[in-house]
């Protein structure tokens, strides 16, 4: 029996291993070199060798609004760059450009393995922190989409994100104090995460409430901190992974948001985020055959802290306007980003990596002291609900 929208390769592709570099504000070595080192680490962790890897995928975009030059191997690291430096001749090398980044590039690899195009794939994500302010841009002429924003003094994702955050507070009577509790939990979880920039560095509610404001109601602590860092995953088939050392984690389904239009600012209206996010969620539940209450480890995305509320409502964990109250329930939210792993706010701007990695670690029973008792089903979300993507993972193949 098949149902509409169901992922037919569910349980056929597994994560075999991973590696994560240290994360730093200032790079310790060229990003490309760190990427190669991390990929080698992931391959070793998975119990395979580099010559066995016949597929490479990444999302390499540097999502900065600064308008600086971008050089592959220095500011971004494409799979093409990796393969050329290593002198490999894999069967399959692709990249994903867009806002679903980690999730979408991961699913490209999953689909290549499921189809038989690839036996073993490496998916990496390399993040560069530009010197100076991440989004600051000294433009004097506003061309293209910038003409609708820059002449008004509107610039950069933190200011866009302030708009739905403010709309949410105003419409539902939520307050910054409500988010303070969640960001504090986020940083507490991040303080216990081995690759966190904020390792052993939690904050208090007072820290949050007195943080420097960027664009009301967004403060500096509502934005994940830009870092240099690389993560890599090794994927293979369910058959091959049985012979490898780590507990496999299987891909159950996925979904992509489609509201990635050119009209960025209109897409940041709160209603558009939630309505589009409900489409993403509905595709995720259809693809995976799962229900929200079956997910033990819902690693929702939090690169900007209010996005947590939007994901909770889009995914169906809370009705519209009640995500901010639901988030405060420590039992109902035990496996979520802000209780374990720490997500992006708690660990640093690795885009969808913290969410995907914590889901993998919990389901493969590799989360150490953070290990949840019940961790059989997880989802890893990335980006805004209407524009991002999500992957469903399981500890068993079916």
């Amino acid at each position, binding site marked *: 029996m098949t149902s509409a929208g169901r992922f037919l390769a569910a349980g056929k592709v597994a994560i075999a291993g991973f590696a994560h570099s240290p994360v730093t504000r200032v790079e310790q070595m060229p990003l490309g070199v760190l990427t190669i080192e991390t990929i080698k680490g992931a391959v070793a962790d998975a119990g395979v060798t580099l010559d066995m890897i016949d597929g490479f995928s990444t999302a390499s975009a540097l999502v900065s*609004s600064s308008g600086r030059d971008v050089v592959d191997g220095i500011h971004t690291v494409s799979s093409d760059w990796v393969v050329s430096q290593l002198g490999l001749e894999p069967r399959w090398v692709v990249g994903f450009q867009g806002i679903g980044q980690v999730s979408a590039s991961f699913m490209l690899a999953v689909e290549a393995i499921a189809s038989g195009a690839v036996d073993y794939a490496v998916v990496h994500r390399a993040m560069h922190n530009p010197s100076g*302010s991440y*989004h*600051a*841009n*000294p*433009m*004097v*002429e*506003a*061309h*293209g*989409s*910038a*003409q*609708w*924003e*820059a*002449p*008004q*003094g*509107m*610039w*950069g994702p*933190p*200011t866009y994100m*302030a*708009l*739905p955050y*403010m*709309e949410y507070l*105003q*419409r539902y009577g939520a307050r910054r104090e409500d988010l303070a509790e969640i960001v504090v939990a986020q940083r507490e979880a991040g303080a216990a995460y081995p690759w966190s920039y904020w390792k052993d560095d939690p904050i208090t509610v007072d820290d949050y409430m007195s943080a*420097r*404001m*960027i*664009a*009301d*109601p*967004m403060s500096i602590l509502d934005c994940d901190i830009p870092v240099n860092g690389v993560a890599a995953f090794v994927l293979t088939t369910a058959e091959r992974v049985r012979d490898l050392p780590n507990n496999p984690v299987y891909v159950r389904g996925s979904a992509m948001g489609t509201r990635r239009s*050119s*009209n960025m*600012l*209109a897409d*940041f*209206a*709160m209603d*558009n985020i939630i309505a589009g996010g409900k489409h993403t969620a509905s595709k995720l539940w259809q693809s995976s055959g799962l229900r929200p209450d079956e997910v033990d480890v819902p690693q929702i995305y939090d690169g900007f802290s209010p996005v947590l509320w939007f994901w909770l409502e889009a995914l169906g964990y809370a009705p519209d306007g009640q995500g901010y109250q639901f988030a405060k329930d420590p039992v109902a939210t035990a496996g979520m980003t802000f209780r374990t792993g720490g997500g992006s706010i708690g660990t640093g701007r690795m885009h969808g990596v913290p969410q995907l990695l914590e889901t993998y670690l919990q389901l493969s029973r590799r989360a150490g002291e953070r290990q949840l008792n019940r961790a059989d089903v997880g989802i890893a979300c990335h980006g805004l609900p209407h524009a991002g993507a999500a992957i469903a993972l399981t500890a068993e193949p079916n």
Partner: protein
Amino acid sequence: MPPTPSAAPDRAHPPKPIPVPDEASAGFWEATARNELAIQGCQHCGHLMHPPRTMCTGCQSTKPAFEWKVVSGRGRVRSWTTIRQALLPAFAADVPYTVAMVELYEQAGLIMTGQLHDIDLADITLDMPVRAEYTELSQGVKVPHFVPVTT
């Protein structure tokens, strides 16, 4: 580092970014120069779009035909943000300033942003009515902003 030539732009105090009209946007900036707000409308279905596009997202016609519809410039505040750290150095001296997301009355979901002037922060409310006014950035180039509609 070589010495900075005197003709080089002053990076610490750059001028405000000037919108550069293109094929799709020229009509918008021609209208603001006349103190009018004009929105791209589809001649097939009447759908209004901002920013202007190459194809109508209302009827998806593959024979696009557009006209500039002068609108009232009035709408309601969907949201706003008060910028306290300017990511554009040209606005560093202006902080704090407020940018509003305004839904124009002519069509549900027709959203544009602009600075919100002539109001105390504490007095801004969701759905408050506003209307467009225009600031001259350089000769012949005017950028719309919004002000409260007082009854």
